């Protein structure tokens, strides 16, 4: 089996003539924590969508653990062990926190098709859900409808959902966006506390959070990869300075 969790092989994505992602290749070894940097409109989220299967790349291949998953549907990739969060919180707002999490845990199991038994009667499943809510700091909020959660709590639920299928590869799209500094700290602690078994690919705007977490950094600019290397070097790289730090 391949040593790489994710390989992006020459992937391009074009929208109505605009190249959002332009021939990007990157390889992420198992267990690595990779942070994707880049100014707005650099193509980070589009690349994410290509990896998660939300978008079909215009050209190139996506490989997960040595298997070409370019033709695998979004839900199929989840079943193969991919989990993700969305840049803008995407949770089922009409349902309770618990129901969201149950859906997450059932999503990769054939049990999701069960029609003959109330889901709440599965005490083992419910117990696990309670435990993982505690992990992200949402204990006691189980029966709250998601629409009444605060913004920060929704981000926490978003992370819990992404983890609920026990993914081997986790894609986090700006998990800290819009959070207060203290919430940010809490969140980066949560992320750094994740099992090292999980390969992590993360988009992050906050440089400090990014550099603290990353094993390796990739910088995108206008759809192209302009840097790929260890975090210590990223701030010294002249290309990166020009397009990224130069803007600050």
């Amino acid at each position: 089996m391949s040593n790489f969790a994710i390989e992006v092989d020459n992937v391009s994505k074009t929208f109505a003539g605009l190249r959002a992602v332009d021939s990007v290749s990157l390889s992420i070894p198992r267990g690595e924590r990779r942070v994707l940097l880049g100014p707005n409109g650099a193509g980070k989220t589009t690349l994410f969508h290509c990896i998660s299967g939300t978008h079909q790349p215009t050209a190139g291949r996506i490989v997960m653990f040595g298997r070409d998953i370019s033709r695998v549907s979004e839900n199929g990739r989840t079943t193969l062990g991919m989990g993700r969060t969305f840049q803008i919180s995407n949770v089922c707002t009409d349902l309770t926190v618990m129901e969201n999490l149950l859906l997450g845990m059932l999503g990769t199991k054939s049990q999701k098709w069960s029609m003959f038994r109330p889901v709440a009667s599965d005490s083992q499943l419910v117990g696990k859900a309670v435990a993982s809510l505690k992990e992200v700091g949402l204990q006691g909020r189980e029966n709250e409808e998601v629409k009444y959660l605060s913004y920060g709590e929704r981000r926490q639920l978003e992370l819990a959902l992404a983890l609920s299928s026990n993914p081997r590869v986790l894609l986090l799209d700006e998990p800290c966006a819009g959070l207060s500094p203290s919430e940010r700290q809490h969140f980066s602690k949560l992320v750094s506390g994740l099992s090292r078994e999980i390969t992590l690919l993360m988009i992050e705007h906050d440089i400090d959070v990014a550099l603290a977490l990353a094993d390796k950094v990739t910088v995108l600019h206008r759809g192209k990869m302009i840097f790929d290397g260890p975090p210590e070097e990223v701030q010294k790289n002249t290309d990166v300075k020009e397009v990224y730090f130069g803007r600050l």
Partner: protein
Amino acid sequence: MNYRVVGIVVLAALLAAVPSVASEYWLVLFTQILIFGLLALSADLLLGHAGLFSLCHAAFFAVSAYTVAILQTRYGVSTIPASLAGLCMGTLLAAVFASAVRTRGVYFILITLAFGYIVWGVAYRWASFTGGDNGVTNVPAPALGGLQVVSKAHYYYFVLAVLAICLASYRILTTSPFGLALRGIKSSESRMRSLGYRVGAHLYVAFVISGFYASLAGVLYIYYNRFVNPVAASFPISVEAILMAIIGGTGTMLGPFIGSGIILILRNWVSGFFHYYTAVLGLIFIATVLWAPNGVMGLIRSWRSGNRGEGA
């Protein structure tokens, strides 16, 4: 929780007592309310749980009613096999029409509407087989084994028994992982996909199950009405079923039956002195959308949460 159990027991007792206290007029009307409530409930499985607005449920209802009627009157098939055939035909049709779940939103609404018209058109124009405008008449009373269900009261009890089973299965279905997934899809399709759900497959199966319940309503209807004509397949029946679900409150079990009661009692009352009932129905549509989009159950819910205080 206890209130709920008490409520169910009281409701069941009241419903069981209807034949002994009500006149035949009300007994027949009640039977009708239960049957159309089931049709509304079937449409609400898609609307209230999965978020799909189907306008072709009269098609499954009518196809199963026609199947039973034709088998019984023309081929002398007895009640139970004819009913099973009716259920099969209605559900099979639903399995074909369920291809509409490839689309969403307005397209889904318009396509199901067009699908519904196919069935109406066939019922109306293929007169040599369906009897055209006159439909199929003289359907015999249902017979279970050697037992003929002739009296109106007996048939009412029969419908009530079938409904009890339906509601129990519906309740389990909507609280099961599958039912929860439908509500998840209604809330956020993209999230459900990224959680590993094949959204299309879930909606397809939900559509077929919904068609099954509608077909069951069709079987109950044909033995209630003893004849069927193209009106059963027509667009107003489909849209009325949706209206009943909304007036009562979508996503609930009781709501569609409350809605069915309101609409049918109103129709019977208004038709007594006013010739143009459909105009009144039109006004009900408009009023519901403008002033009571969450229906009776929605009003009860907001009243209760108001009593308990906000966010309780």
